[in-house]
């Protein structure tokens, strides 16, 4: 099967800055693909390369098997939902949504109908007569989505589309985006710096840092088997254990990742590894307690269910975890 989007050794340099550096990736058709990374990691530049706003310095890009480099944005059946929505302020909502059909020469009645259907799909029926300035952030976000989807793109690109929304609205939109993607079957490529968002929404995640993909896999793989220290640290929070420490546990002397929620306080169960330490600090997070423990000079974060009793600061404590949860990583970065 041809990939929806294929990058072969793609680089985009701005002067001496390697925004995207020899990236290979293949987005499968119908997939919800997330590009995750901190700002400046190259994820947005990758999205812009897919949209055609940037041209690669080197490498080869294909969209559904067709060469994309050198092709301007207006000849790609790829549409973008911009970070700050980029709605045309001088046009009504209906004209905004119908814009893509208008420039393609679709008759007025037909595009009007299609735009109204698209607005109904994003739950904004009857909003067509308003102006972008009269809508709230969440509503504008839906309009931007309708404006892109009305063109029936082969790939929908989303550039941090939920970044400007407040928490409740963001969670609601995550659900809606996911179900929309399922029902339409369109390939979604989603850029975000929010690891929670990427984990909960995506079929696969590419974790970016310094213009390179650090790891590409399903949310479970990326979370449970981080390949590098960067991934372990950026996706969720993790205890990165130094090689000497890991060697004392009887494993190969490499950096290892140990998730805070994999550790329990006190000695529990058989066959688990046990560490002795002292409590440095503790904080109540609602559903859980976070406890910082000093084990022979190494600080270890423990996420403990709120119901368990927590020793006081300065008290000795035993930590235990399953050997399988200790994940060894490549030496690199």
């Amino acid at each position: 099967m041809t990939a929806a989007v294929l990058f072969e050794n793609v680089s985009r340099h701005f002067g001496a800055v390697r925004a995207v550096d020899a990236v290979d990736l293949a987005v499968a058709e119908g997939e919800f693909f997330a590009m995750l990374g901190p700002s400046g990691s190259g994820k947005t530049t990758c999205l812009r390369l897919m949209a055609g706003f940037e041209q690669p310095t080197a490498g080869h890009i294909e969209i559904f098997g067709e060469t994309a480099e050198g092709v301007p944005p207006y000849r790609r059946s790829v549409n973008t939902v911009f970070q700050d929505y980029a709605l045309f302020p001088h046009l009504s909502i209906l004209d905004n949504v119908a814009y893509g059909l208008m420039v393609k020469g679709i008759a007025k009645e037909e595009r009007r109908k299609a735009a109204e259907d698209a607005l109904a799909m994003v739950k904004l029926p009857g909003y067509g007569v308003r102006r972008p300035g009269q809508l709230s952030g969440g509503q504008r976000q839906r309009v931007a989505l309708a404006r892109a989807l009305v063109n029936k793109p082969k790939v929908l690109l989303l550039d941090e589309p939920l970044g400007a929304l407040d928490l409740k609205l963001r969670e609601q939109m995550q659900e809606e985006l996911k179900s929309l993607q399922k029902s339409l079957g369109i390939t979604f490529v989603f850029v975000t710096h929010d690891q929670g968002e990427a984990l909960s929404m995506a079929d696969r995640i590419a974790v970016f840092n310094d213009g390179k993909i650090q790891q590409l896999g399903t949310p479970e793989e990326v979370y449970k088997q981080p390949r590098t220290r960067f991934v372990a640290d950026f996706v969720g929070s993790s205890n990165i254990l130094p090689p000497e420490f890991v060697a004392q546990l009887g494993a190969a002397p490499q950096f290892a990742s140990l998730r805070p929620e994999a550790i329990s306080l006190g000695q529990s169960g058989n066959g688990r590894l046990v560490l002795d330490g002292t409590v440095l600090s503790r904080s109540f997070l609602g559903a859980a307690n976070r406890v910082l423990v000093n084990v022979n000079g190494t600080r270890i974060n423990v996420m403990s269910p709120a119901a368990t009793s927590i020793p006081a600061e300065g008290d000795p404590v035993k930590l235990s975890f399953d050997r399988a949860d200790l994940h060894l990583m490549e030496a690199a970065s």
Partner: protein
Amino acid sequence: MSAIAQQHAIETGRGSMAGRVSDFLWKHPHVFLTILLGPPLLWLGIIYLGSLLALLLQSFFSIDDYSGLINYEFTLATYRQLLNDANFDIIIRTILMAAIVTLFSAVIAFPIAYYAARYARGKWKVIFYLGVMLPLWSSYLVKIYAWKLILAKEGILTWLVTKLNLLWLLDAWLSLPVIGGNSLSVSYTGTFIVFVYVWMPFMILPIQAALERVPTNLIEASSDLGGTPQQTFRHVLFPLALPGIVAGSIFTFSLTLGDYIIPQIIGSSRLFIGQAVYAQQGTAGNIPLAAAFTVVPIIIMGLYLWMARRMGAFDAL
């Protein structure tokens, strides 16, 4: 007790006169606003609008042809005189010139403004501003006389055209009726060139400001949705730059309507509104007719703004 606890939560007044005035103005913002806006409002109200009204009033008086004295009775006779053939010609000539100057200024200014707003950075932006503003720093009269020399029959332009073996083209142009003449410096074409040159900064700067406010991602969005560069220009860039173009055209249009020096130095001897006003209030001593002439640009500008508003030029503001 710590040092912080010893301090009062609320400082007492500093006691000085300036301090008390500040406190008073802080408590009475209306007084502050009156002091701030009073002088400019007085200036605008009395000296500016007042004299404009006096001017309007003058246009409804008439002049006694025999004695040359002003007859202070309300009459429309002066306006009737304004619309006689000779005077009406002046009005039409001026409006046409202003319209063509405005149109050409906009066409020439847009690419320059677009470059400055979208591409010029750092050093190039400084060069752009200097290039646009520098002509404004030298005297208007000096520039016009310089143009007279450039456009004269013995001038550098004729020399250049001759060197390029294009003299036939210039001669063909000058032999055209109305816009032609003996040389460029005594033709409408010359007047037009100098008008466009002198008002150009007033067109470039507002368009540049408007284009600079158009977010780049709107251009990208249009392109992303399938808009070709021409379509993006027509449906996104132009509508959003229109307030700037209208602002610029208000300058070029009204400045051309009122100018009396450029057509006097460069052009044929046929009058423009500004020259007519100058002649009527000076040598002819016909203040009412001069006043009536000045009312024409005011009405035209009023109509122009109303039309621009109707066309939606200010919708994107």
